[in-house]
Protein backbone atom coordinates (compact mmCIF):
# COMPACT_ATOMS: atom_id res chain seq x y z
CA UNK A 1 0.00 0.00 0.00
CA UNK A 2 1.25 3.44 -0.89
CA UNK A 3 2.02 5.85 1.89
CA UNK A 4 2.95 9.47 2.19
CA UNK A 5 6.56 8.49 2.24
CA UNK A 6 6.42 7.26 -1.34
CA UNK A 7 7.87 9.54 -3.90
CA UNK A 8 5.21 12.21 -4.47
CA UNK A 9 5.88 12.41 -8.21
CA UNK A 10 5.32 8.68 -8.59
CA UNK A 11 2.07 8.92 -6.60
CA UNK A 12 0.85 11.90 -8.51
CA UNK A 13 1.56 10.39 -11.91
CA UNK A 14 -0.04 7.14 -10.84
CA UNK A 15 -3.23 8.91 -9.82
CA UNK A 16 -3.53 10.57 -13.18
CA UNK A 17 -2.78 7.28 -14.93
CA UNK A 18 -5.28 5.24 -12.92
CA UNK A 19 -8.04 7.76 -13.52
CA UNK A 20 -7.36 7.74 -17.25
CA UNK A 21 -7.24 3.94 -17.45
CA UNK A 22 -10.37 3.27 -15.45
CA UNK A 23 -12.41 5.84 -17.34
CA UNK A 24 -11.04 4.53 -20.63
CA UNK A 25 -11.97 1.01 -19.60
CA UNK A 26 -15.49 2.10 -18.71
CA UNK A 27 -15.95 3.83 -22.07
CA UNK A 28 -14.58 0.83 -23.92
CA UNK A 29 -17.40 -1.26 -22.42
CA UNK A 30 -19.80 0.65 -24.67
CA UNK A 31 -18.06 -0.08 -27.95
CA UNK A 32 -20.36 -2.29 -30.00
CA UNK A 33 -23.31 -1.54 -27.73
CA UNK A 34 -23.97 2.14 -28.38
CA UNK A 35 -27.28 3.76 -29.37
CA UNK A 36 -25.94 4.57 -32.85
CA UNK A 37 -22.78 3.59 -34.69
CA UNK A 38 -21.49 7.15 -34.51
CA UNK A 39 -21.43 6.83 -30.75
CA UNK A 40 -19.51 3.55 -30.95
CA UNK A 41 -16.93 5.57 -32.83
CA UNK A 42 -17.03 8.41 -30.30
CA UNK A 43 -16.65 6.03 -27.36
CA UNK A 44 -13.81 4.37 -29.23
CA UNK A 45 -12.10 7.71 -29.73
CA UNK A 46 -12.50 8.84 -26.17
CA UNK A 47 -11.52 5.43 -24.82
CA UNK A 48 -8.39 5.44 -26.95
CA UNK A 49 -7.45 8.93 -25.83
CA UNK A 50 -7.74 7.91 -22.20
CA UNK A 51 -5.92 4.61 -22.55
CA UNK A 52 -3.22 6.45 -24.47
CA UNK A 53 -2.90 8.97 -21.65
CA UNK A 54 -2.77 6.13 -19.13
CA UNK A 55 0.03 4.38 -21.04
CA UNK A 56 2.19 7.47 -21.22
CA UNK A 57 1.59 8.24 -17.56
CA UNK A 58 2.24 4.67 -16.38
CA UNK A 59 5.42 4.51 -18.39
CA UNK A 60 6.59 7.71 -16.74
CA UNK A 61 5.47 6.59 -13.28
CA UNK A 62 7.45 3.38 -13.71
CA UNK A 63 10.48 5.38 -14.75
CA UNK A 64 10.12 7.73 -11.77
CA UNK A 65 9.71 4.81 -9.41
CA UNK A 66 12.78 3.15 -10.80
CA UNK A 67 11.87 -0.37 -9.75
CA UNK A 68 11.48 -1.71 -13.26
CA UNK A 69 7.70 -1.72 -13.35
CA UNK A 70 6.41 -0.99 -16.83
CA UNK A 71 2.94 0.18 -17.86
CA UNK A 72 1.51 -3.33 -17.73
CA UNK A 73 3.00 -4.15 -14.34
CA UNK A 74 1.36 -1.04 -12.97
CA UNK A 75 -1.99 -1.56 -14.67
CA UNK A 76 -2.33 -5.30 -14.32
CA UNK A 77 -0.59 -6.27 -11.14
CA UNK A 78 -2.01 -3.96 -8.52
CA UNK A 79 -5.19 -4.83 -6.64
CA UNK A 80 -7.99 -2.34 -5.97
CA UNK A 81 -6.52 -1.01 -2.73
CA UNK A 82 -3.47 0.18 -4.61
CA UNK A 83 -5.40 1.95 -7.33
CA UNK A 84 -5.48 5.75 -7.02
CA UNK A 85 -8.15 6.84 -9.48
CA UNK A 86 -10.99 9.24 -8.74
CA UNK A 87 -14.15 7.52 -7.52
CA UNK A 88 -16.14 9.30 -10.23
CA UNK A 89 -14.58 7.38 -13.08
CA UNK A 90 -15.10 3.90 -11.63
CA UNK A 91 -18.86 4.39 -11.24
CA UNK A 92 -20.84 2.01 -13.44
CA UNK A 93 -21.77 3.08 -16.95
CA UNK A 94 -25.47 2.84 -16.20
CA UNK A 95 -27.43 4.12 -19.15
CA UNK A 96 -26.18 6.39 -21.91
CA UNK A 97 -27.17 9.49 -19.93
CA UNK A 98 -25.19 8.34 -16.92
CA UNK A 99 -22.09 7.67 -19.01
CA UNK A 100 -22.32 10.99 -20.83
CA UNK A 101 -22.92 13.02 -17.69
CA UNK A 102 -20.00 11.28 -15.99
CA UNK A 103 -17.85 12.12 -19.00
CA UNK A 104 -19.00 15.71 -18.94
CA UNK A 105 -18.31 16.15 -15.23
CA UNK A 106 -14.81 14.75 -15.59
CA UNK A 107 -13.82 16.28 -18.91
CA UNK A 108 -14.99 19.77 -17.91
CA UNK A 109 -12.33 19.54 -15.23
CA UNK A 110 -9.65 17.53 -17.04
CA UNK A 111 -9.49 19.83 -20.04
CA UNK A 112 -8.39 23.00 -18.20
CA UNK A 113 -6.42 20.89 -15.75
CA UNK A 114 -4.24 19.36 -18.45
CA UNK A 115 -3.94 22.76 -20.12
CA UNK A 116 -2.47 24.06 -16.89
CA UNK A 117 -0.34 20.95 -16.41
CA UNK A 118 1.14 21.56 -19.86
CA UNK A 119 3.10 24.32 -18.16
CA UNK A 120 4.49 21.96 -15.51
CA UNK A 121 8.14 22.21 -14.65
CA UNK A 122 8.27 18.48 -15.18
CA UNK A 123 8.83 18.28 -18.91
CA UNK A 124 7.47 14.76 -19.35
CA UNK A 125 4.26 15.57 -17.53
CA UNK A 126 4.02 18.81 -19.47
CA UNK A 127 4.30 16.99 -22.78
CA UNK A 128 1.76 14.33 -21.83
CA UNK A 129 -0.59 17.01 -20.56
CA UNK A 130 -0.30 19.13 -23.69
CA UNK A 131 -1.48 16.19 -25.78
CA UNK A 132 -4.16 15.22 -23.27
CA UNK A 133 -5.52 18.76 -23.13
CA UNK A 134 -6.20 18.71 -26.85
CA UNK A 135 -7.95 15.37 -26.51
CA UNK A 136 -10.04 16.39 -23.54
CA UNK A 137 -11.31 19.44 -25.42
CA UNK A 138 -13.17 17.05 -27.69
CA UNK A 139 -14.49 15.06 -24.71
CA UNK A 140 -15.97 18.17 -23.12
CA UNK A 141 -17.56 19.25 -26.38
CA UNK A 142 -19.01 15.85 -27.17
CA UNK A 143 -20.28 15.13 -23.68
CA UNK A 144 -21.70 18.64 -23.27
CA UNK A 145 -23.56 18.35 -26.55
CA UNK A 146 -25.14 15.11 -25.46
CA UNK A 147 -25.90 16.43 -22.00
CA UNK A 148 -27.80 19.29 -23.64
CA UNK A 149 -29.48 16.99 -26.16
CA UNK A 150 -30.65 14.60 -23.45
CA UNK A 151 -31.58 17.28 -20.95
CA UNK A 152 -33.56 19.23 -23.52
CA UNK A 153 -34.76 16.14 -25.45
CA UNK A 154 -37.76 14.14 -24.29
CA UNK A 155 -39.25 13.91 -20.81
CA UNK A 156 -37.64 10.52 -20.41
CA UNK A 157 -34.18 11.63 -21.48
CA UNK A 158 -34.47 14.71 -19.26
CA UNK A 159 -35.37 12.57 -16.26
CA UNK A 160 -32.54 10.15 -16.96
CA UNK A 161 -30.00 12.94 -17.34
CA UNK A 162 -31.17 14.63 -14.16
CA UNK A 163 -30.98 11.31 -12.29
CA UNK A 164 -27.47 10.76 -13.56
CA UNK A 165 -26.48 14.20 -12.39
CA UNK A 166 -27.85 13.62 -8.88
CA UNK A 167 -26.23 10.21 -8.73
CA UNK A 168 -22.78 11.41 -9.79
CA UNK A 169 -22.62 14.84 -8.24
CA UNK A 170 -21.35 13.59 -4.84
CA UNK A 171 -18.23 12.36 -6.65
CA UNK A 172 -17.29 15.75 -8.06
CA UNK A 173 -15.83 17.14 -4.86
CA UNK A 174 -12.91 14.71 -4.92
CA UNK A 175 -11.77 16.16 -8.24
CA UNK A 176 -10.69 19.35 -6.50
CA UNK A 177 -9.08 17.79 -3.45
CA UNK A 178 -5.44 18.41 -2.71
CA UNK A 179 -3.53 16.34 -0.19
CA UNK A 180 -0.02 16.96 1.13
CA UNK A 181 1.51 14.78 -1.59
CA UNK A 182 0.00 16.97 -4.24
CA UNK A 183 0.53 20.21 -2.35
CA UNK A 184 4.26 19.58 -2.26
CA UNK A 185 4.30 19.13 -6.02
CA UNK A 186 2.10 22.17 -6.59
CA UNK A 187 4.48 24.27 -4.53
CA UNK A 188 7.42 23.39 -6.75
CA UNK A 189 5.47 23.95 -9.96
CA UNK A 190 5.20 20.30 -10.97
CA UNK A 191 1.53 19.62 -10.22
CA UNK A 192 -1.45 21.84 -10.86
CA UNK A 193 -3.49 23.46 -8.12
CA UNK A 194 -7.09 22.59 -8.96
CA UNK A 195 -8.56 25.35 -6.77
CA UNK A 196 -8.31 28.16 -9.32
CA UNK A 197 -9.94 25.88 -11.92
CA UNK A 198 -13.07 25.57 -9.88
CA UNK A 199 -14.60 28.80 -11.12
CA UNK A 200 -14.21 27.74 -14.72
CA UNK A 201 -15.66 24.30 -13.96
CA UNK A 202 -18.60 25.93 -12.23
CA UNK A 203 -19.18 28.15 -15.20
CA UNK A 204 -19.06 25.22 -17.62
CA UNK A 205 -21.55 23.40 -15.41
CA UNK A 206 -23.88 26.36 -15.19
CA UNK A 207 -23.73 27.10 -18.91
CA UNK A 208 -24.25 23.56 -20.08
CA UNK A 209 -26.75 22.45 -17.44
CA UNK A 210 -28.66 25.66 -18.03
CA UNK A 211 -28.88 25.04 -21.76
CA UNK A 212 -29.79 21.43 -21.00
CA UNK A 213 -32.64 22.63 -18.73
CA UNK A 214 -31.12 20.47 -15.98
CA UNK A 215 -31.01 21.48 -12.34
CA UNK A 216 -27.54 21.66 -10.86
CA UNK A 217 -27.57 19.57 -7.66
CA UNK A 218 -26.66 21.36 -4.49
CA UNK A 219 -23.17 20.71 -3.20
CA UNK A 220 -23.84 18.31 -0.31
CA UNK A 221 -21.40 15.92 1.27
CA UNK A 222 -18.79 14.87 -1.22
CA UNK A 223 -17.53 11.28 -1.41
CA UNK A 224 -13.81 10.82 -1.25
CA UNK A 225 -11.19 8.13 -0.89
CA UNK A 226 -9.97 7.10 -4.35
CA UNK A 227 -6.59 8.72 -3.88
CA UNK A 228 -6.10 6.81 -0.66
CA UNK A 229 -7.17 3.53 -2.25
CA UNK A 230 -10.61 3.52 -0.59
CA UNK A 231 -12.83 2.87 -3.57
CA UNK A 232 -16.39 1.86 -4.24
CA UNK A 233 -17.38 -1.78 -4.69
CA UNK A 234 -17.24 -1.35 -8.45
CA UNK A 235 -13.49 -1.13 -8.92
CA UNK A 236 -12.79 -4.70 -7.85
CA UNK A 237 -15.12 -6.01 -10.52
CA UNK A 238 -13.44 -3.89 -13.18
CA UNK A 239 -10.05 -5.27 -12.18
CA UNK A 240 -11.14 -8.91 -12.13
CA UNK A 241 -11.88 -8.58 -15.85
CA UNK A 242 -9.10 -6.17 -16.74
CA UNK A 243 -6.38 -8.23 -15.11
CA UNK A 244 -7.57 -11.75 -15.79
CA UNK A 245 -5.04 -12.83 -18.41
CA UNK A 246 -2.03 -11.25 -16.75
CA UNK A 247 -3.01 -12.92 -13.50
CA UNK A 248 -3.88 -16.30 -15.01
CA UNK A 249 -0.67 -16.55 -17.08
CA UNK A 250 1.96 -14.93 -14.90
CA UNK A 251 5.10 -13.84 -16.68
CA UNK A 252 3.75 -14.39 -20.18
CA UNK A 253 4.42 -11.86 -22.92
CA UNK A 254 1.50 -10.95 -25.15
Amino acid at each position, binding site marked *: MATMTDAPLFQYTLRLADTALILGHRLS*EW*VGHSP*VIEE*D*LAFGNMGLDLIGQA*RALYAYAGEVEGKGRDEDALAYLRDAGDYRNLLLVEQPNGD*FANTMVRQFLYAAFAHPYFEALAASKDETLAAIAAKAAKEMAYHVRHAAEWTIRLGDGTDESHARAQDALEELWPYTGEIFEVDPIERALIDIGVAVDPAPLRALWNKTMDDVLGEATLVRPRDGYMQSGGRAGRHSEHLGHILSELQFLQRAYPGATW
Partner: protein
Amino acid sequence: PEREKRFQARIDAEERIEPNDWMPEQYRRTLIRQISQHAHSEIVGMLPEGNWITRAPSLKRKAALLAKVQDEGGHGAYLYAAAETLGAAREDLEDELLSGKAKYSSIFNYPTLSWADIGIIGWLVDGAAIMNQIPLCRCSYGPYARAMIRVCKEESFHQRQGYEIMLALCRGTPEQKAMAQEALNRWWWPVLMMFGPSDKDSQHTETAMRWKIKRFTNDELRQKFIDATVPQGHFLGLTFPDPALTFNETTQHWDFGEIDWTEFKRVIAGDGPCNRQRMKQMRAKHDNNAWVRAAALAYANKRQQRAEAAHRVAAE
Protein backbone atom coordinates in the same frame (compact mmCIF):
# COMPACT_ATOMS: atom_id res chain seq x y z
CA PRO B 1 -32.72 -3.06 -73.33
CA GLU B 2 -30.91 -0.36 -75.28
CA ARG B 3 -30.05 1.37 -72.00
CA GLU B 4 -29.04 -1.92 -70.59
CA LYS B 5 -26.66 -2.52 -73.47
CA ARG B 6 -25.06 0.86 -72.98
CA PHE B 7 -24.82 0.13 -69.26
CA GLN B 8 -23.10 -3.18 -69.94
CA ALA B 9 -20.80 -1.52 -72.41
CA ARG B 10 -19.67 0.97 -69.80
CA ILE B 11 -19.02 -1.84 -67.37
CA ASP B 12 -17.10 -3.80 -69.97
CA ALA B 13 -14.99 -0.71 -70.55
CA GLU B 14 -14.22 -0.68 -66.80
CA GLU B 15 -16.01 2.61 -66.32
CA ARG B 16 -17.41 3.34 -62.86
CA ILE B 17 -21.18 3.56 -62.39
CA GLU B 18 -22.09 6.51 -60.17
CA PRO B 19 -25.22 7.09 -58.04
CA ASN B 20 -26.99 9.33 -60.55
CA ASP B 21 -26.30 7.07 -63.53
CA TRP B 22 -29.01 4.84 -64.90
CA MET B 23 -28.66 1.20 -63.75
CA PRO B 24 -30.80 -1.93 -64.06
CA GLU B 25 -33.06 -2.52 -61.10
CA GLN B 26 -31.51 -5.89 -60.40
CA TYR B 27 -28.01 -4.36 -60.36
CA ARG B 28 -29.23 -1.84 -57.80
CA ARG B 29 -30.93 -4.51 -55.70
CA THR B 30 -27.96 -6.86 -55.84
CA LEU B 31 -25.64 -4.09 -54.74
CA ILE B 32 -27.89 -2.91 -51.94
CA ARG B 33 -28.13 -6.46 -50.66
CA GLN B 34 -24.41 -7.08 -50.88
CA ILE B 35 -23.30 -3.73 -49.46
CA SER B 36 -25.79 -3.82 -46.59
CA GLN B 37 -24.86 -7.40 -45.74
CA HIS B 38 -21.29 -6.27 -45.68
CA ALA B 39 -22.21 -3.34 -43.42
CA HIS B 40 -24.19 -5.62 -41.11
CA SER B 41 -21.21 -7.95 -40.90
CA GLU B 42 -18.98 -5.12 -39.77
CA ILE B 43 -21.47 -4.13 -37.08
CA VAL B 44 -22.21 -7.64 -35.81
CA GLY B 45 -18.49 -8.37 -36.09
CA MET B 46 -17.86 -5.81 -33.36
CA LEU B 47 -19.44 -8.17 -30.83
CA PRO B 48 -17.12 -11.19 -30.78
CA GLU B 49 -14.01 -9.02 -30.71
CA GLY B 50 -15.60 -6.52 -28.34
CA ASN B 51 -15.95 -9.45 -25.95
CA TRP B 52 -12.20 -9.20 -25.25
CA ILE B 53 -11.65 -5.43 -25.08
CA THR B 54 -12.11 -5.39 -21.31
CA ARG B 55 -9.81 -8.41 -20.93
CA ALA B 56 -7.01 -7.63 -23.36
CA PRO B 57 -3.74 -8.79 -21.80
CA SER B 58 -1.71 -5.58 -22.13
CA LEU B 59 -2.49 -1.92 -22.54
CA LYS B 60 -0.94 -1.93 -25.99
CA ARG B 61 -3.20 -4.81 -27.07
CA LYS B 62 -6.17 -3.20 -25.40
CA ALA B 63 -5.70 0.02 -27.33
CA ALA B 64 -5.13 -1.84 -30.58
CA LEU B 65 -8.23 -3.99 -30.14
CA LEU B 66 -10.35 -1.02 -29.19
CA ALA B 67 -9.13 0.84 -32.27
CA LYS B 68 -9.81 -2.19 -34.41
CA VAL B 69 -13.37 -2.69 -33.21
CA GLN B 70 -13.90 1.02 -33.67
CA ASP B 71 -12.63 0.75 -37.26
CA GLU B 72 -15.22 -1.92 -37.89
CA GLY B 73 -17.91 0.45 -36.72
CA GLY B 74 -16.47 3.00 -39.11
CA HIS B 75 -16.56 0.52 -41.99
CA GLY B 76 -20.16 -0.23 -41.13
CA ALA B 77 -21.00 3.46 -41.19
CA TYR B 78 -19.51 4.14 -44.58
CA LEU B 79 -20.85 1.00 -46.12
CA TYR B 80 -24.34 2.02 -44.99
CA ALA B 81 -23.60 5.38 -46.60
CA ALA B 82 -22.62 3.63 -49.83
CA ALA B 83 -25.88 1.66 -49.75
CA GLU B 84 -27.75 4.91 -49.23
CA THR B 85 -26.38 6.25 -52.53
CA LEU B 86 -28.45 3.48 -54.12
CA GLY B 87 -31.64 4.76 -52.50
CA ALA B 88 -31.76 2.49 -49.46
CA ALA B 89 -32.49 4.02 -46.04
CA ARG B 90 -30.08 3.09 -43.28
CA GLU B 91 -32.90 2.65 -40.81
CA ASP B 92 -34.65 0.16 -43.09
CA LEU B 93 -31.44 -1.77 -43.55
CA GLU B 94 -30.90 -1.93 -39.79
CA ASP B 95 -34.49 -3.06 -39.29
CA GLU B 96 -33.93 -5.87 -41.76
CA LEU B 97 -30.94 -6.98 -39.72
CA LEU B 98 -32.85 -6.89 -36.45
CA SER B 99 -35.83 -8.74 -37.88
CA GLY B 100 -33.51 -11.47 -39.11
CA LYS B 101 -34.44 -10.80 -42.74
CA ALA B 102 -30.97 -9.57 -43.69
CA LYS B 103 -27.91 -11.74 -43.27
CA TYR B 104 -24.45 -10.96 -41.93
CA SER B 105 -21.26 -12.94 -42.29
CA SER B 106 -21.84 -16.24 -40.59
CA ILE B 107 -18.34 -16.32 -39.14
CA PHE B 108 -19.52 -13.97 -36.40
CA ASN B 109 -21.84 -16.68 -35.13
CA TYR B 110 -18.78 -18.37 -33.65
CA PRO B 111 -17.68 -17.37 -30.16
CA THR B 112 -14.38 -15.82 -29.06
CA LEU B 113 -13.23 -18.13 -26.30
CA SER B 114 -9.65 -17.16 -25.67
CA TRP B 115 -7.32 -14.28 -26.40
CA ALA B 116 -5.90 -16.30 -29.27
CA ASP B 117 -9.26 -15.92 -31.00
CA ILE B 118 -8.52 -12.21 -31.30
CA GLY B 119 -5.31 -13.09 -33.08
CA ILE B 120 -7.11 -15.59 -35.30
CA ILE B 121 -9.85 -13.16 -36.25
CA GLY B 122 -7.27 -10.63 -37.34
CA TRP B 123 -5.07 -13.08 -39.16
CA LEU B 124 -7.67 -15.38 -40.74
CA VAL B 125 -11.09 -13.73 -40.66
CA ASP B 126 -9.76 -10.36 -41.77
CA GLY B 127 -7.39 -12.16 -44.10
CA ALA B 128 -10.31 -13.94 -45.78
CA ALA B 129 -12.30 -10.72 -45.85
CA ILE B 130 -9.47 -8.91 -47.61
CA MET B 131 -9.20 -11.72 -50.15
CA ASN B 132 -12.90 -11.22 -50.88
CA GLN B 133 -12.68 -7.45 -50.85
CA ILE B 134 -9.58 -6.62 -52.85
CA PRO B 135 -11.35 -7.39 -56.13
CA LEU B 136 -14.23 -5.20 -54.91
CA CYS B 137 -11.90 -2.20 -54.99
CA ARG B 138 -12.41 -2.47 -58.73
CA CYS B 139 -16.16 -3.06 -58.44
CA SER B 140 -18.18 -1.39 -61.20
CA TYR B 141 -20.15 0.69 -58.70
CA GLY B 142 -18.05 3.73 -57.81
CA PRO B 143 -19.07 4.45 -54.20
CA TYR B 144 -18.69 0.81 -53.24
CA ALA B 145 -15.31 0.52 -54.93
CA ARG B 146 -14.06 3.62 -53.15
CA ALA B 147 -15.38 2.44 -49.77
CA MET B 148 -13.62 -0.86 -50.35
CA ILE B 149 -10.28 0.81 -51.01
CA ARG B 150 -10.43 2.44 -47.62
CA VAL B 151 -11.75 -0.70 -45.90
CA CYS B 152 -9.05 -2.90 -47.42
CA LYS B 153 -6.30 -0.58 -46.32
CA GLU B 154 -7.48 -0.75 -42.71
CA GLU B 155 -8.20 -4.47 -42.88
CA SER B 156 -4.64 -5.19 -43.99
CA PHE B 157 -3.42 -3.35 -40.96
CA HIS B 158 -5.75 -5.42 -38.76
CA GLN B 159 -4.58 -8.57 -40.41
CA ARG B 160 -0.95 -7.80 -39.70
CA GLN B 161 -1.86 -7.01 -36.12
CA GLY B 162 -3.69 -10.31 -35.81
CA TYR B 163 -0.75 -12.21 -37.17
CA GLU B 164 1.48 -10.38 -34.76
CA ILE B 165 -0.73 -11.50 -31.85
CA MET B 166 -0.39 -15.08 -33.09
CA LEU B 167 3.36 -14.67 -33.36
CA ALA B 168 3.59 -13.46 -29.75
CA LEU B 169 1.54 -16.45 -28.60
CA CYS B 170 3.48 -18.98 -30.66
CA ARG B 171 6.78 -17.62 -29.39
CA GLY B 172 5.42 -17.42 -25.86
CA THR B 173 4.91 -20.02 -23.15
CA PRO B 174 3.75 -23.56 -24.00
CA GLU B 175 0.32 -22.56 -22.65
CA GLN B 176 0.17 -19.63 -25.03
CA LYS B 177 1.23 -21.80 -27.94
CA ALA B 178 -1.48 -24.31 -27.05
CA MET B 179 -3.99 -21.48 -26.90
CA ALA B 180 -3.02 -20.45 -30.41
CA GLN B 181 -3.26 -24.00 -31.76
CA GLU B 182 -6.63 -24.59 -30.12
CA ALA B 183 -7.97 -21.39 -31.64
CA LEU B 184 -6.75 -22.39 -35.08
CA ASN B 185 -8.44 -25.76 -34.67
CA ARG B 186 -11.76 -24.12 -33.98
CA TRP B 187 -11.62 -21.36 -36.61
CA TRP B 188 -9.93 -22.87 -39.64
CA TRP B 189 -12.92 -24.57 -41.24
CA PRO B 190 -15.43 -21.82 -40.49
CA VAL B 191 -13.00 -19.34 -42.05
CA LEU B 192 -12.81 -21.40 -45.25
CA MET B 193 -16.60 -21.27 -45.35
CA MET B 194 -16.44 -17.47 -45.47
CA PHE B 195 -15.86 -17.68 -49.23
CA GLY B 196 -19.31 -19.12 -49.66
CA PRO B 197 -20.54 -22.33 -51.27
CA SER B 198 -18.51 -24.17 -53.81
CA ASP B 199 -18.79 -22.78 -57.37
CA LYS B 200 -20.92 -25.69 -58.45
CA ASP B 201 -23.52 -24.74 -55.83
CA SER B 202 -23.24 -20.95 -56.02
CA GLN B 203 -26.20 -19.12 -57.56
CA HIS B 204 -25.35 -15.45 -57.82
CA THR B 205 -21.97 -15.75 -59.41
CA GLU B 206 -22.67 -15.42 -63.13
CA THR B 207 -24.60 -12.15 -63.27
CA ALA B 208 -22.39 -10.66 -60.59
CA MET B 209 -19.34 -11.49 -62.71
CA ARG B 210 -20.88 -9.92 -65.80
CA TRP B 211 -21.60 -6.74 -63.85
CA LYS B 212 -18.14 -6.79 -62.35
CA ILE B 213 -19.51 -6.82 -58.84
CA LYS B 214 -17.61 -10.04 -58.50
CA ARG B 215 -14.39 -10.85 -60.32
CA PHE B 216 -13.36 -14.23 -58.98
CA THR B 217 -15.41 -17.27 -58.07
CA ASN B 218 -15.76 -18.46 -54.47
CA ASP B 219 -13.48 -21.42 -55.08
CA GLU B 220 -10.82 -19.28 -56.73
CA LEU B 221 -10.72 -16.91 -53.80
CA ARG B 222 -10.72 -19.74 -51.28
CA GLN B 223 -7.75 -21.33 -53.00
CA LYS B 224 -5.87 -18.03 -53.11
CA PHE B 225 -6.50 -17.61 -49.41
CA ILE B 226 -5.33 -21.09 -48.51
CA ASP B 227 -2.23 -20.73 -50.62
CA ALA B 228 -1.37 -17.47 -48.91
CA THR B 229 -2.22 -18.60 -45.40
CA VAL B 230 -0.80 -22.09 -45.03
CA PRO B 231 2.84 -21.00 -45.17
CA GLN B 232 2.08 -18.28 -42.60
CA GLY B 233 0.62 -20.88 -40.28
CA HIS B 234 3.61 -23.15 -40.74
CA PHE B 235 5.91 -20.26 -40.00
CA LEU B 236 4.07 -19.90 -36.69
CA GLY B 237 4.69 -23.57 -36.03
CA LEU B 238 0.99 -24.36 -36.06
CA THR B 239 -0.74 -27.39 -37.51
CA PHE B 240 -3.86 -26.96 -39.59
CA PRO B 241 -6.73 -29.23 -38.55
CA ASP B 242 -6.93 -30.82 -41.99
CA PRO B 243 -5.03 -34.04 -42.61
CA ALA B 244 -5.69 -33.67 -46.35
CA LEU B 245 -3.77 -30.41 -46.55
CA THR B 246 -0.81 -31.04 -48.89
CA PHE B 247 1.12 -29.04 -51.40
CA ASN B 248 0.38 -30.16 -54.93
CA GLU B 249 3.58 -29.87 -56.97
CA THR B 250 1.66 -30.11 -60.25
CA THR B 251 -0.88 -27.35 -59.61
CA GLN B 252 1.45 -25.43 -57.29
CA HIS B 253 -1.52 -25.06 -54.94
CA TRP B 254 -2.39 -26.48 -51.55
CA ASP B 255 -4.90 -29.31 -51.79
CA PHE B 256 -7.31 -29.44 -48.90
CA GLY B 257 -10.01 -31.62 -47.42
CA GLU B 258 -13.76 -31.53 -47.86
CA ILE B 259 -15.57 -28.62 -46.23
CA ASP B 260 -18.49 -29.60 -44.01
CA TRP B 261 -21.24 -27.89 -45.96
CA THR B 262 -23.84 -29.19 -43.54
CA GLU B 263 -22.31 -27.03 -40.86
CA PHE B 264 -22.14 -24.11 -43.26
CA LYS B 265 -25.86 -24.33 -44.07
CA ARG B 266 -26.81 -24.96 -40.48
CA VAL B 267 -25.01 -21.91 -39.16
CA ILE B 268 -26.45 -19.70 -41.90
CA ALA B 269 -29.89 -21.10 -41.09
CA GLY B 270 -29.56 -19.90 -37.49
CA ASP B 271 -28.11 -22.82 -35.56
CA GLY B 272 -24.54 -21.67 -35.10
CA PRO B 273 -23.14 -21.42 -31.60
CA CYS B 274 -23.93 -17.69 -31.28
CA ASN B 275 -26.68 -16.77 -33.75
CA ARG B 276 -29.24 -16.28 -31.00
CA GLN B 277 -26.77 -14.49 -28.79
CA ARG B 278 -25.71 -12.05 -31.52
CA MET B 279 -29.28 -11.18 -32.43
CA LYS B 280 -30.13 -10.78 -28.78
CA GLN B 281 -27.17 -8.44 -28.30
CA MET B 282 -28.15 -6.42 -31.37
CA ARG B 283 -31.78 -6.15 -30.30
CA ALA B 284 -30.87 -5.29 -26.73
CA LYS B 285 -28.71 -2.42 -27.87
CA HIS B 286 -31.42 -1.22 -30.23
CA ASP B 287 -34.26 -1.48 -27.72
CA ASN B 288 -32.43 -0.26 -24.62
CA ASN B 289 -31.22 2.83 -26.42
CA ALA B 290 -34.40 3.73 -28.30
CA TRP B 291 -34.94 6.57 -25.84
CA VAL B 292 -31.55 8.08 -26.77
CA ARG B 293 -32.42 8.21 -30.44
CA ALA B 294 -35.84 9.63 -29.59
CA ALA B 295 -34.20 12.31 -27.45
CA ALA B 296 -31.75 13.26 -30.19
CA LEU B 297 -34.62 13.57 -32.67
CA ALA B 298 -36.78 15.58 -30.28
CA TYR B 299 -33.90 17.93 -29.57
CA ALA B 300 -33.11 18.41 -33.27
CA ASN B 301 -36.76 19.26 -33.92
CA LYS B 302 -36.86 21.72 -31.05
CA ARG B 303 -33.76 23.42 -32.29
CA GLN B 304 -35.15 23.73 -35.75
CA GLN B 305 -38.40 25.16 -34.49
CA ARG B 306 -36.53 27.64 -32.33
CA ALA B 307 -34.38 28.66 -35.26
CA GLU B 308 -37.46 29.15 -37.41
CA ALA B 309 -39.20 31.09 -34.70
CA ALA B 310 -36.16 33.32 -34.27
CA HIS B 311 -36.08 33.79 -38.01
CA ARG B 312 -39.75 34.85 -38.04
CA VAL B 313 -39.19 37.28 -35.22
CA ALA B 314 -36.22 38.75 -37.01
CA ALA B 315 -38.24 39.04 -40.23
CA GLU B 316 -41.14 40.79 -38.52
